[in-house]
């Protein structure tokens, strides 16, 4: 319990009665959430007292992140602004970053906790900021308070293993390797990768899609969808200007490739002498039957990935709005079973679109066309009922 340490909440927080402990395992307020009014962010950003540097930097960053979309968001959500309860402070992150010191032991040594200023280690800061950016999207757009919806602390470990070419969610924390330096850079370099891992946690606490076969590929795809949405939201990119790449920057310059995956054009992310060609299928025609990787969950995810892209392309604008909302409603709604296949998931997205936007709305039409575009066949009449 670190929340009672006043040094972690260096700035008084108007409107929030709790500068410190909430009594629920959460600690100091962060300034990165959609609940902080812009005038306050501007005030914080202008503070020059070195004691308040962390908060000022967080506020400046939040302003930068939010600028292009803040006004839009406020305008759009007149009836859905989150209320601030008196007792608890939802939407406040409690981040703890640990360093495994290149061993494969978790959690490692704590190196940065919520509210502490940046450290010299770039991987630590990238993980800290990336978790914050991910939380900001979930909280401000979908009013989801952390991984479990109830402010679960966000824990991550960096420098896991030696030359470790991977990142994963172990059921409790996000873990990032340094890469080998020849093929892979450090895995915290990509915000979409960080958000991908955190989203595995969100899925675990919601639809809990079984990590095998089509439900496993959907689990993977959901992590890619929100991985890219976090990146697009943080960068203020709309559907047209976004790259739709997962893991851009992860490959070293020696690799002929832009990223791990392309949601816009699955199968085109890399084409390299050593790695081969990106094997992801973009439609059901290319569905891969394999025993590897729990039935090719990282390969067949290309199909629902592209379906999401097609929905976003059809609707235009910001993908974290209607397209992201429909996928979020699907993931957290009542219509998805743990063993859902592509058709069942598609049906659930159509139901979610109808529930939120109405039958035959543009959103509903875009969802139907998106799945049709990747060859996933389902019964839209059942979705409407």
């Amino acid at each position, binding site marked *: 319990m670190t929340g009672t340490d006043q040094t972690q909440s260096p700035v008084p927080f108007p409107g929030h009665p709790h500068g410190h402990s909430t009594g629920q395992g959460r600690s100091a307020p962060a300034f990165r959430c959609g609940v902080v009014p812009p005038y306050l962010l501007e005030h914080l950003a202008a503070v020059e007292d070195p004691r308040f540097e962390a908060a000022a930097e967080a506020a400046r960053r939040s302003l930068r992140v939010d600028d292009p979309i803040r006004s839009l968001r406020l305008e759009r959500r007149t009836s859905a602004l989150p209320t601030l309860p008196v007792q608890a402070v939802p939407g406040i992150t409690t981040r703890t970053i640990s360093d495994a010191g290149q061993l494969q032991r978790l959690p490692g040594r704590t190196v940065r906790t919520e509210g502490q200023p940046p450290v010299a280690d770039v991987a630590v800061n990238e993980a800290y900021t990336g978790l914050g950016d991910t939380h900001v999207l979930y909280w401000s757009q979908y009013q989801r308070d952390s991984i479990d919806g109830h402010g679960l602390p966000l824990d991550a470990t960096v420098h896991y293993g030696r030359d470790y070419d991977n990142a994963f969610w*172990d059921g409790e924390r996000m873990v990032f390797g340094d890469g080998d330096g020849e093929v892979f850079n450090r895995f915290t370099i990509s915000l979409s990768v960080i958000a991908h*891992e955190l989203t*595995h946690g969100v899925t675990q606490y919601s639809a809990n899609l079984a*990590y095998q076969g089509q439900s496993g590929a959907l*689990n993977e795809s959901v992590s890619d969808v929100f991985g890219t949405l976090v990146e697009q939201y943080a960068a203020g990119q709309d559907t047209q200007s976004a790259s739709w790449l997962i893991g851009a920057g992860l490959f070293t310059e020696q690799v002929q490739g832009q990223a791990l995956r392309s949601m816009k054009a699955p199968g085109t992310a890399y084409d390299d002498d050593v790695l081969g060609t990106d094997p*992801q299928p973009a439609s059901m025609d290319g569905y891969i039957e394999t025993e*590897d*990787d729990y039935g090719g*969950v990282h390969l067949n995810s290309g199909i629902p990935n592209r379906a999401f892209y097609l929905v976003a392309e059809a609707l235009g604008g910001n993908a974290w709005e209607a397209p992201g909302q429909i996928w979020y409603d699907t993931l957290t709604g009542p219509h998805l079973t743990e063993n859902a296949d592509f058709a069942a998931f598609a049906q659930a997205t159509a139901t979610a679109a109808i529930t939120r936007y109405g039958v035959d709305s543009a959103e509903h039409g875009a969802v139907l066309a998106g799945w049709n575009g990747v060859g996933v066949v389902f019964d839209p009449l059942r979705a409407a009922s």
Partner: protein
Amino acid sequence: MKVVVSRSGGIAGLRVTWDVQVDEQPDAAAWMRFLEELPWDEAEDSAPMPDRYVYRIRCAPHEVVLAEPQVHGAWKDLIDRVRAASER
């Protein structure tokens, strides 16, 4: 006799395969003893974990699939040896 280790999964979803021709190794006899003592029939299924590696190890007539957290002790030793021999 050939040992093939293939690693799939991980967030990148890249499949990597390493193999070694045991008979061609300078310490072939030691390899054979090591392989015979591995607990081939004792590996248990484990719950999948997102983005973790999956290892498939084949050495006829044996085949075993291990989730990353199961790779320790003699199995880790084997994978490290095959990988080192394969990359030599």
